[in-house]
């Protein structure tokens, strides 16, 4: 198997935009290619969760490849709901590792704010099981069921969810790419509108527009893809072995650490899929940073702050960097690249970093992907 490296990265600012999806994706792609110092690639892997529904576009991979002036290079789209951005990285990794490709552009984007919140919420809910949707189940509703179960099982206080919202907003206030570049205090979080109790508005990631791109390569660069893993779970929450942890993450992380040949304790910085604040706790436990049920205690202890021993979501996370659903998985990886390069500006983790990890959740845990990057030079 050939080693795979990251050659260049680029993304747009996340948040509501007047620009079209192809223009957001174009900006991310040319920024990544410029950062990589290439004007051509061997193939393009495109990620978008639902452009058919959000903006009425299909055949998006051919359209974007044409728009980028990369015809006749091969292109395809990969989709795994909200982990789509990580899935294209996963797919391209194995294409490169096979030795058949040298440089691949992975490019993800989503444009969600053209529709009403109700319409967008309906589209996002279409990834859930038909039976659970028929009962009125939405993404926040099922996340709320998971949250109450977790909080009850492990005596996790409301304060822990609030802490994560406040922390991630503070981190995003230092991130020029973030949707929400402002801080919030605990009172604002805890008096925000109840969406599905115990989840309030500030526990939920926003609907965002945005795009992200990476040029992946088999030529050695300072950032190596050390490990990657992908796991799935039953679509219906009630069919799963656990509903307070994602088995799919646990499967994925085991593969990723095996490939990397390291243990969770070696990770210096992480981006965890906090589409809802409690998912940052579950995610930290599932990837092995903390024991099940202990995650909230470590987080309340300040350990995941940028200045703490294990910074989690220095970008602001999905919660505050924003969540253009197909692009988030790739944006997480880009943040780790910036952190490892020492290029994360005001939110830079200020010590020597070697390993960074991302965890992306697709469809409320149906297709989860873990990636480990290593700074090698």
């Amino acid at each position, binding site marked *: 198997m050939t080693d795979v490296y990251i050659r260049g990265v680029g993304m747009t600012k996340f948040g509501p935009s007047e620009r079209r999806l192809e223009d957001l994706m174009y900006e991310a792609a040319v920024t990544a290619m410029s950062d990589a110092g290439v004007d051509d690639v061997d193939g393009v892997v495109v990620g978008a969760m639902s452009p058919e529904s959000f903006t009425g576009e299909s055949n998006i991979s051919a359209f974007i490849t044409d728009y980028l002036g990369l015809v006749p290079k091969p292109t395809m789209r990969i989709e795994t709901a909200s982990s789509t951005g990580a899935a294209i990285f996963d797919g391209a990794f194995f294409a490169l590792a096979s030795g058949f490709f040298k440089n691949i552009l992975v490019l993800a984007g989503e444009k969600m704010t053209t529709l009403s919140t*109700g319409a967008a919420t309906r589209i996002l809910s279409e990834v859930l099981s038909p039976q659970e949707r028929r*009962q*009125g189940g939405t993404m926040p509703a099922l996340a*709320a069921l998971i949250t109450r179960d977790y909080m009850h099982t492990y005596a996790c206080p409301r304060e822990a969810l609030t802490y994560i919202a406040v922390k991630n907003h503070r981190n995003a206030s230092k991130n020029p790419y973030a949707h929400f570049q402002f801080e919030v205090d605990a009172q604002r979080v805890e008096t925000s509108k109840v969406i*599905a109790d115990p*989840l309030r508005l500030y526990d939920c990631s926003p609907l965002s527009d945005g795009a992200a791109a990476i040029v992946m390569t088999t030529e050695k660069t300072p950032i190596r893809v050390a490990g990657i893993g992908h796991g799935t779970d039953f679509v219906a*929450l*009630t*069919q799963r072995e656990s509903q307070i942890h994602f088995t799919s993450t646990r499967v994925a992380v085991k593969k990723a650490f095996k490939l990397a040949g390291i243990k969770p304790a070696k990770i210096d910085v992480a981006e965890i899929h906090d589409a809802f604040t409690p998912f940052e706790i579950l995610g930290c436990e599932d990837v092995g940073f903390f024991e099940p049920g202990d995650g909230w205690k470590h987080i309340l202890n300040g350990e995941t702050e940028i200045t703490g021993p294990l910074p989690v979501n220095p970008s602001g996370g999905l919660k505050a960097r924003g969540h253009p659903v197909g692009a988030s998985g790739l944006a997480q990886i880009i943040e780790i690249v910036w952190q490892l390069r020492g290029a994360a500006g005001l939110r830079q983790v200020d010590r020597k970093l070697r390993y960074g990890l991302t965890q992306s959740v697709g469809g409320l845990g149906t297709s989860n992907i873990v990636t480990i990057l290593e700074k090698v030079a």
Partner: protein
Amino acid sequence: MEPASRLEASFCGKCRKQFVPVRAHCSSCRGRTERIYIEGRGKLRTFTTLFVTPDGFTPPLVIGICELDGGLRVLGEIGDYRARESLTVGEPVRVTEKEGKYYLLLERPA
């Protein structure tokens, strides 16, 4: 006496696994399942009240997950929305099915 609460389920004879709602093939061995009926009593494992609901539903909508005595979990609507302030994890509930939807009925003393 109250009639038993019977729920339609699927059963895989090979894996000894039960499924609610019904599914044609076992999630473990892909073999064909058979139709069975199980007792729909259990405990409220978790619940939420939706104040923002999808089209076709009126807030507040209360849904929950019942863990049946046999271990299966069923997601259903808690019809008595007035009880939402007093719901507790672990309280006994009974699951019924009506027109493809599940309802969790609270088993509280009258």
